[in-house]
């Protein structure tokens, strides 16, 4: 079974803090994704990566950055957390060949609920 894990289930940070959200997958998947999920807005893609050290902006990348130094790990970074970044953050991964297949199911982690005070 595919397993995607996230470093924290719940996180509380203060405005201006630098926040790291970690995601690890154990299925040697090439593609990894970070989403945020908010009531009424559904899942919105922040960033994704289709290879080590490769990253591409999603729909809402502002205020975020990512790092993919190893294939199994994809980190989301909030350089200076703000209250409007309070949300549920979901990591996902999928297999594929250099990110050019449209038919790969994404497998999600349990989510990190981040609260920024």
């Amino acid at each position, binding site marked *: 079974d595919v397993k*995607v894990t996230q470093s924290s289930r719940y996180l509380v940070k203060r405005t201006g803090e630098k926040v790291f959200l970690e995601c690890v997958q154990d299925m040697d998947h090439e*593609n990894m994704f970070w989403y945020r999920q908010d009531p*009424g807005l*559904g*899942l919105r*893609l922040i960033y*994704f990566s*289709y290879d080590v050290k490769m990253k*591409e902006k999603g729909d809402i990348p502002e205020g975020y950055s990512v790092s993919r130094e190893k294939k199994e790990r994809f980190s989301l970074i909030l350089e200076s957390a703000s209250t409007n970044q309070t949300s549920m953050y*979901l990591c*996902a991964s*999928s297999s*594929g060949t*250099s*990110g*050019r*297949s*449209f*038919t*790969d*199911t*994404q*497998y*999600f*982690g*349990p*989510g990190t609920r981040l609260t920024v005070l």
Partner: protein
Amino acid sequence: GESVGLHLPTLSVQEGDNSIINCAYSNSASDYFIWYKQESGKGPQFIIDIRSNMDKRQGQRVTVLLNKTVKHLSLQIAATQPGDSAVYFCAEPGARNAGNMLTFGGGTRLMVKP
């Protein structure tokens, strides 16, 4: 723009009855559709998928129907159980021409009454 949507935001069914969750899509070029289930406080979980060259696909207690003529997708759950209570999303390949992107619907909440 391209979108994936749902007809009903909330569906309430009696335990043991069958459930039908609907999804409308607008991208006629989509070749793949996925249904996810998300329980409270958890990440979305893959349920079943269907390719555009199929009209129907069955899993364990679930059936997905695809009607390309009217761009409609449905998820049928047989003998609904309390454990089926969750939010269900449909998803399709994203409109953006970058591999492995998915566009998600807003979700339908299924509530199962004992």
